[in-house]
């Protein structure tokens, strides 16, 4: 099943499909953001509370420290917690630190950066999305709606799309195809991608993929010799293939 997408239509005729983020990516981003704003609010609360004399100020029947105490110790952390999303989404053009880490961002239904009004509206509707507790309405809405949106997004006309920061290294791989190394662009791209993801893959998988790829792109390597090579030797072979042309 293909994930739903929205088409960013361009006057040049070259349209781009933006993949819509599902409940998983959205929840992941939300949980990260929730932790960040909670930690920030608590850090502010306890940090400023220390300046006012520590926890005893809250627990004991100490004399009223005045309005500064209310504004700095009580109101400011609440403001950090509740205004985190609207302020950062506006300032970061539809992103928050959590969304950035989850590789998603907010766009309008036409794929553009949403306006300030739309971002405020989607945040006002958190009042409904968070009902009855732990965002159950919002979560149910993202699961059952066509574009995986919560009610705030429906009201504001916004979507969350994948915004994975593709690596600049993808172009590096193509260089190997232009420097006389004998690799075609697709093979060079695949080899570079495998090297970039080498650390993320477990040993069995990366060895299997490397053998298969080298056997396909390097006619001089026999399958028997590849079968005897270790993971590090295979990696070195891939690096050699990509740099061969440069050396030449």
């Amino acid at each position: 099943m293909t994930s739903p997408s929205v088409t960013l239509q361009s006057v040049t005729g070259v349209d781009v499909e933006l993949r819509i983020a599902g409940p998983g990516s959205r929840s992941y981003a939300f949980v990260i953001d929730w932790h960040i704003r909670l930690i920030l609010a608590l850090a502010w609360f306890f940090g400023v509370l220390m300046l006012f004399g520590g926890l005893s100020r809250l627990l004991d029947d100490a004399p009223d420290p005045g309005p500064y105490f209310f504004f700095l110790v009580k109101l400011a952390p609440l403001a950090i917690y509740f205004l985190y999303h609207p302020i950062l989404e506006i300032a970061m053009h539809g992103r928050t630190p959590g969304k950035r880490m989850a590789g998603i961002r907010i766009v309008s239904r036409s794929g553009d950066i949403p306006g300030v009004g739309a971002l405020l509206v989607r945040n006002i509707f958190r009042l409904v999305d968070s009902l009855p507790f732990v965002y159950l309405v919002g979560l149910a809405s993202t699961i059952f709606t066509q574009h995986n949106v919560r009610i705030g997004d429906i009201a504001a006309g916004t979507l969350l799309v994948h915004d994975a920061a593709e690596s600049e290294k993808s172009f590096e791989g193509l260089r190997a195809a232009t420097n006389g190394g004998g690799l075609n662009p697709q093979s060079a791209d695949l080899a570079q991608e495998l090297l970039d993801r080498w650390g993320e893959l477990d040993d069995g998988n990366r060895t299997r993929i490397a053998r298969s790829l080298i056997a396909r792109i390097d006619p001089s390597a026999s399958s028997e010799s590849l079968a005897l090579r270790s993971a590090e030797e295979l990696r070195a072979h891939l690096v050699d293939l990509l740099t061969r042309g440069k050396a030449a």
Partner: protein
Amino acid sequence: MSAEAGLQAWLASRIASWQQLAPQLDRLERKRDHTAAEALNAIEMYRSLGRDLSIARRILPASRATRTLEARYAKLHAIIYRKPQNWRERVRTLFRDEIPDVVHELRTPIQWVSLLFALSTAAGWWLVSTYPELIGLLASEDMINGVEGGRLWTEGMLNVVPSSVVSTEILANNVMVSLFAFVVGIFFGLGTFYVIATNGLMLGAFFAFTHQHGMAGELLKFVTAHGVVELSVICLAGAAGTMLGESLIRPTHATRRESFQHATAKTSRLLLLCALLLIGCGFIEGYLSPDPDFPLLNRVIVGFGYAVVMVGALTGRLFGRKSASLPEIAK
């Protein structure tokens, strides 16, 4: 030149410029006041990137390089098509034209919601007058004991909490009630009716309860300065909420989603004015209303004056709108 050599030459000529894209786009995104030359350069970059992407899709389908180009292209598209920001003009248009137009369109819902509020206030009065024990469902024990002991809960408020704190707490509470009255309109308007009716019911019940103990006059004196605008704003937010419900019941666009989105975009503008009016209410309720030395006449003047300001803001005249520009009259 063979096709493969041509492809290699093309890639070799483009890779350097593709690697420069990320910092260029970051600079374009951060800056707001681009020169004409920078804008033309961005458009040329957009065309060039479109061509490159088109070719890359044919010769490198499903590759990371193509996906990277797509991401850069989408980002540049968003930068080029983002709306210009002229905050001063935008704010002026919003308050002078757009909000008054929304208010004009909401005339009927405002009347119906106000009527509902008045009826539920009367119902609250009648219920507590007829069954005094019902006040236990609406008021806290401290409030009930205080009134029964001849002391209104607003008395001595400033001796306990500073005015600035009272103002902020009241503002936060009123903003929450107004926003809630608006957003629960999504439940086909029923949520809004519920919020408005319960607020009216409580107001009527409190007045009936204080009346039973000969203190309704004191309560009326307390709410005179801020009450008119505060209650009006809640009714305005409620009227905006009912419009959300109506957009779902009787859609004005092809789908209910579009209709709801359109209604929300339009009516949410009114909430901005509501929030600003509530700041004034919070200030009055925190600094003036609890002050026992603030005379009744002054309270009436403040209440009436702030109501005039509210009407001026709702009709746009406070922001320079001429009456002839009202949409109905223009037609």
